[in-house]
């Protein structure tokens, strides 16, 4: 009699909702969450809402979780997928992820159903930070990169910092989070490819306007290489500090494996940094794009 079954294929000891936490003081953990909902918000993006254990809710803006995605096709999904947090609802005990269904991992995620379980590891990495002197920030995001900037904006509101949000997407239908930013009281500007308004020159003009109006103490961006390069250039020219959230293929997500490195420029020298450990949020002036 063989003693292997599908259920014992892997050993894992994640914390489950309502069960005791073996490592309550550790900064990160492996958690089995319960799916509340997982609905399409537009033609290509979904919002996953999870009931999560308390320790997972200690996540900060810009941090990420490493997600053990179900298989979309019967074959194994071998590695977890890193994903930044869209919303942390500590009072409600919920975590939300806004994602684009693209590769096998996110396709597997799209099949999660309410009531089902989902294993996440985190919170991981270094998130966004707000300096005490900043009264006005500019967030510039494109596509699903807007999701990463959402909790930063929540944080800014909590610190009484005003937000100018420039949201970029291919079409108006894909402009996610416009209401989210508007409800936070942000000054929202939208640009899209379909009418040409997302062109770098136009976004540059908008940013120059915000700088002239004194509304740009710091820049934040995610989701577009050309917008990152634009903010880096304007930031350097006007002496405006900035932060960018980056992504990369990841394996351990804890700093051990050195798979998720990217090139950065520090003091004129090119160096490799781990997106999982030294990031995923980096100084815009150190970023060299991708």
């Amino acid at each position, binding site marked *: 009699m063989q*003693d*292997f079954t599908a259920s*014992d*294929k*892997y*050993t*894992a*000891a*994640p914390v489950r909702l309502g069960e005791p936490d073996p*490592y309550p003081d*550790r*900064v*990160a*953990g*492996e958690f089995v969450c319960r799916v509340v909902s997982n609905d399409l918000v537009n033609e290509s993006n979904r919002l996953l809402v999870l009931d999560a254990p308390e320790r997972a809710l200690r996540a900060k803006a810009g941090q990420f979780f*490493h997600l*053990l995605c179900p298989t979309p096709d019967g*074959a*194994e*999904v*071998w*590695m*977890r997928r890193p994903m930044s947090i869209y919303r942390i609802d500590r009072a409600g005990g919920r975590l939300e992820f806004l994602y684009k269904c693209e590769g*096998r991992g996110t396709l597997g995620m799209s099949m999660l159903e309410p009531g089902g379980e989902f*294993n996440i*590891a985190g919170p*991981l990495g270094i998130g966004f930070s707000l300096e005490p002197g900043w009264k006005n920030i500019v967030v510039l995001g494109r596509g699903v990169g807007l999701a990463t900037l959402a909790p930063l904006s929540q944080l800014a509101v909590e610190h009484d910092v005003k937000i100018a949000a420039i949201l970029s997407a291919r079409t108006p239908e894909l402009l996610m989070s416009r209401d989210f930013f508007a409800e936070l009281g942000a000054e929202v500007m939208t640009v899209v490819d379909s009418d040409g308004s997302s062109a770098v020159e136009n976004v540059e003009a908008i940013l120059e306007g915000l700088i002239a109006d004194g509304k740009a103490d710091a820049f934040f961006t995610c989701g577009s290489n050309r917008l990152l390069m634009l903010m880096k250039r304007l930031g350097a020219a006007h002496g405006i500090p900035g932060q960018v959230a980056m992504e*990369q*293929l990841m*394996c*351990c*997500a*804890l*700093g*051990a*494996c*050195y*798979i998720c*490195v*990217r090139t950065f420029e520090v003091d004129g020298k090119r160096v*490799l940094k781990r997106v999982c*450990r030294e990031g995923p949020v980096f100084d815009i002036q150190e970023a060299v794009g991708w």
Partner: protein
Amino acid sequence: MVDLSIRIGDVDLANPVMPASGAFSWEYADVIDLNRLGGLVAKTICKEPRNGNPTPRMAETEAGIIQSIGLPGKGVYYFLDNIVPEYKKFTPPFIASISAETADEFAEMCSILSVPEIDVLEVNISCPTRNATGGNFSLHEEHTAKVMRDIRAATDHPVWAKLSPNAGDIVSIAVAAEEAGADALVIANTFLSLKIRTDNFRPALGNKFGGLVSPALKPIVLRMVYQVAKEVTVPVIGIGGVTKAEDVVEYMLAGAHGVGIGYAGFRNPTALTAIIDDLQEWCEARGIERITDLIGAVRDDDMETDTLVAASAGV
């Protein structure tokens, strides 16, 4: 209470479960209690600082992941000053892992690292993305014997030789390493692999070749551990595809004293401690009092295996 402790040469380990070099760092303390592990195995270091290989460094395949990191690091002196102290915050034996391009450099590094803070030197003479005369010595018997003799002459520390599964006959390599003075054998490193993207006809990894990491390796490496353990007297540590407690048991039945775990710790960051818990339970449920009773306890005396051994050893 089951006694999970094992002894590898002169080194006592609380249990047979260790991380595999390269798949672990002290940073796992963010998630688990490192003091529960059998040993702490650092990422392989080189003498000089290295950036490592171009990205992408990992690609998913149908049966596991292939990766090629290229031994990035800040060199041996940075390791001694900055990384060793991080590991020394924890109690399990500390195993430093070393790679070098020449036998002389291996010996020099072993000499530099023969300090009291380091309990064991794992000599990674099998980095899959290095060649036979530039670091992957364990592809050939004579290179293995030479580098291990030079290492042995350079240090009195326990030396564990990490061997390659890519050699034609790993048993001969293992015997050569033992005869040249290895205190234990770590079997094995990753399998040299390739993935080509059909969308752009390009190799998927920045370094072209990578090592396959997968539960699929377990039966292959288990066979190697079994064959090697029959021919050597030094302890063997099995690495390849361990994802659960029964896999540890299987390796020990095949003759291993302990195991190294890589992939499972990537998939589930809590896997190593969970496997130790499960191992304890597995032994309790079966009335096994000492885990060492499992070493080499496979019941195969009545089975004819000569054909298999001869075929896979290339005889």
